[in-house]
């Protein structure tokens, strides 16, 4: 994966010592500024388009804090964040885990945390990685452009935090916690996959909330109107399905239709849903995002080194970290835990650049539209218009598969043994690529569960349906989640897992205690 090593051979490099930046190992603010500007100029020469950056120096304790609240500078209080804090603090203290060198937030300005423990070369690496790599990805990738609003996320979290704490004061911590727990369980089912939400600011959000509360309650009441219908219409009513189409956004459906929720509870459902939506692009672009940022820190810093700005010692330290980050242990390695997104993403962007610059015959055959083009433009296009699934489907080259020595293993419960279904050879390339691409598809990774039906005229029970893909069943966590759904819905909730022939293979049913 280190084909880029030629960038490092110093033979034909004309070192201009006069451009050398100061290179002590400890950082200071002046130095950060100097390096930031130098990296910025280099990034501009490659045309990276970014949000303004905001660098925040933090201590390792603060980094632990940031870990716990999913990296966000503000968030509402919840025990699960405390749990994550306790966990990461413990493993950090025992030395099981190094801290990330940086956390970067998709916001405008783009906030990057730098740890004070980092050496100056590390700070340079982090700035290049976060402030130019991730930052330009956040600004350019279509999913982020479509689904998240970088300028308002911090505002929204401030609003969410104050709203939740207001609710806690008014309704008690336990009541709020119950709603939040239930929403968190459904967080992955609180996103619109195909529809773009509107952008709104905090002030608007607050105003709208009040209107919404009144309006929503009225809507819900309409839906659940229990006045006896005219006899003639009865038959027709019965056949009407609700919802008319299955709904994939379960939290949205609950927010709008759950019969017993108080307005404040609906608002909390909405908050969790909004935050889930904000993180949705990140979950779909892990390989691309990390690969892009890694590719750029590597390219920017190497360019600077070539221009004589970085000392050899700096470059060694940077490369040593870089190598650790992109290490891909093979499947037989004790440390193997799946494909390292940094390694895959970095290798793929590097490979695209190679195909543009030095295409082989194989590349010309596989990527006729890519071979020989301007690599900067082609990389930019790839960054903007794909997510992990489609990116791998589009760009994973045979050479990559060979370099990684990829192979696909088919695990079919009906068979007593696993089968190697494809390896890195001519017959296997397409299948491998398809398989790896699918593996990065959230729709494949997460069970497909939708709101199927509500018995609106009867006992108001809600039916969720899991449509099995490749006969994969649901795990035992389902029962707990169904309990949470029932808590929100207020009436009986049933989850059925059906196979391709609509046969119910598993089902769970929970009737919430009637406390209203």
């Amino acid at each position, binding site marked *: 994966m280190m084909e880029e090593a030629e960038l490092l051979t110093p033979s034909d490099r004309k070192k201009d010592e006069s451009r050398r930046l100061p290179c002590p190992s400890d950082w200071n603010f002046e130095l950060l500024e100097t390096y930031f500007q130098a990296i910025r100029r280099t990034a501009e020469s490659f045309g990276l388009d970014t949000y303004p950056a905001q660098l925040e120096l933090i201590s390792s304790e603060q980094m632990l804090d940031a870990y716990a609240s999913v990296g966000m500078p503000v968030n509402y209080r919840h025990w699960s964040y405390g749990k994550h804090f306790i966990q990461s603090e413990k493993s950090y203290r025992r030395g099981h885990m190094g801290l990330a060198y940086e956390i970067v937030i998709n916001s405008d300005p783009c906030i990057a945390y730098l740890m004070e423990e980092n050496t100056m070369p590390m700070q340079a690496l982090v700035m290049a990685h976060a402030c130019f790599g991730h930052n330009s990805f956040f600004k350019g990738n279509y999913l982020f452009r479509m689904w998240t609003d970088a300028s308002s996320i911090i505002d929204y979290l401030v609003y969410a935090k104050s709203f939740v704490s207001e609710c806690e004061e008014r309704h008690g911590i336990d009541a709020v916690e119950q709603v939040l727990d239930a929403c968190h369980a459904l967080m992955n089912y609180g996103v619109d996959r195909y529809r773009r939400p509107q952008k709104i600011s905090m002030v608007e959000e607050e105003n709208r909330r009040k209107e919404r509360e009144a309006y929503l309650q009225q809507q819900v009441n309409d839906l659940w109107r229990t006045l006896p219908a005219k006899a003639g219409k009865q038959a027709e009513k019965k056949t009407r399905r609700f919802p008319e189409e299955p709904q994939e956004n379960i939290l949205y459906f609950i927010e709008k239709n759950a019969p017993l929720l108080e307005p404040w509870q609906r608002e909390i459902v909405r908050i969790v849903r909004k935050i889930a939506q904000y993180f949705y692009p990140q979950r779909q672009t892990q390989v691309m995002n990390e690969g892009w940022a890694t590719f750029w820190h590597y390219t920017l810093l190497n360019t600077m080194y070539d221009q004589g700005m970085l000392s050899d010692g700096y470059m060694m330290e940077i490369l040593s970290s870089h190598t650790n980050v992109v290490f891909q242990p093979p499947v037989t390695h004790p440390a193997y835990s799946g494909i390292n997104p940094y390694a895959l993403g970095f290798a793929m962007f590097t490979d695209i650049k190679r195909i543009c610059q030095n295409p082989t015959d194989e590349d010309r055959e596989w990527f006729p539209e890519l071979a020989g083009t301007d690599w900067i433009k082609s990389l930019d296009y790839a960054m903007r218009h794909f997510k992990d699934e489609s990116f791998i489907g589009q760009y994973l080259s045979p050479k990559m598969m060979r370099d990684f020595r990829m192979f696909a293993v088919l695990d079919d419960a009906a068979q007593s043994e696993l*089968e190697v279904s494809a390896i890195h050879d001519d017959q296997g390339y397409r299948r491998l690529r398809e398989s790896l691409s699918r593996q990065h598809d959230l729709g494949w990774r997460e069970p497909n569960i939708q709101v199927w039906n509500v018995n609106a005229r009867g006992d108001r029970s809600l039916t969720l349906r899991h449509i099995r893909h490749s006969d994969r069943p649901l795990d035992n966590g389902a029962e707990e989640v169904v309990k949470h759904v029932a808590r929100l819905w207020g009436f009986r909730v049933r989850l059925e897992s059906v196979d391709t022939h609509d046969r119910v293979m598993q089902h769970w049913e929970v009737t919430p205690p009637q406390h209203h």
Partner: protein
Amino acid sequence: MSNNSGGERSMLHQVIDRRLSGKNKSIGNRERFLRRYKEQIKEAVRKAVGDRSIRDIEEGADITLPKRDVSEPTFGHAPGGSRELVHPGNQEYIRGDRIQRPQGGGGGGSGGSGASQDGQGEDDFVFRISREEFMNYFFDDLALPRMIRTQLLADVPEWKYRRAGYVSEGSPSALHIVRSMRTGLARRIAMGGDTRIELRRAIEQLKEAEERGDPEKDLALLREAVAELRTRLKRVPWLDPFDLRYRNRVREPMPTSKAVMFCLMDVSGSMDESRKDLAKRFFILLYLFLSRHYEKTEVVFIRHHTQAAEVTEDEFFHATESGGTVVSSALTLMNDIIRARYMGSEWNIYGAQASDGDNWQQDSSKCRELLDHKILPLVRYYAYVQVADEDQNLWEEYTRVRDANSHFAMQKIVTPSQIFPVFRDLFKKTPQAA
């Protein structure tokens, strides 16, 4: 990059130093977590108290919660059906090879998809609470004994001597020689002052007379005056009793530093595990209480049935013996130990005795005698808890002791929930005790 539509905006940036602001942002969330699992943590603390030695009771503790309890459920796939995963690092496989299914039913290893993040490993969730938190939980259903803190201090006299300048009276052993000599010198200078002036003048006159060549008769007269003045100077005493200085020492009350706590427990057959547990928890409270007051707290464990023995803590709580009960044997042993090892005034002696009150008939009055005459005069406080409900002759005898001594207290504890109230009651400040 190539798309530079928004690129005109300059890359403004700023550097903010957050290191000094807002540490411990997660404390609130951590509290939420502890709050949610309060019952489990309390239970764990209770267990930890049972398991650990009295002396290190005040450490923090590792709390273990079943993973199931702290999990955040989500929908996920279970093993089953068919799935294909891509792995890197192929060494020997070719298409169509068959591989033994790995043990554990996890399917084809944990793929990069992370499809079963929660499914793997049923490890417990272990975390550490600090010493302070531990104590809070420990005292939680007992309420903090803060009110007691200052009470016993009032009647704990221990004195310390401190040097405080010099005085003119004292014992010869405290004589300060340098100071005394210096006073003497000063006195001698003061007392000889006039004489010395006269002497100087007389000597000058004598010199002048000699130079002038005065008659021998006058000279002799002058010589006699000088000699007389010299003798007078010599008569000033070298050292007067008045000069003597002694080092001064003042007595000051001092916060006490050392305490010894005697734990006396009945281990006869009638003391079962739950009664011992009650006793142990009572001893622990007392230990904590004392160790907050004194720099050093020693603990002496005495257990008895018909005979008493000093034992280690472990033996104290865990060894089982059976047989009859002679309580006085323990009291006698305590008395002997005090006289042998803890007679100094620096020792604050506390006694705590736990028994089910089932004593040999003739022995109880002997116990009263021992307490009244031997032990109570030596100890700061003596508490007796009976971990059984029935009144027996020991209880009656001890009631008489209590009526006669303000620093003797007794209570009954039957259920764990009574321990703290009883403890507080025992150590409540009473007007007589003050």
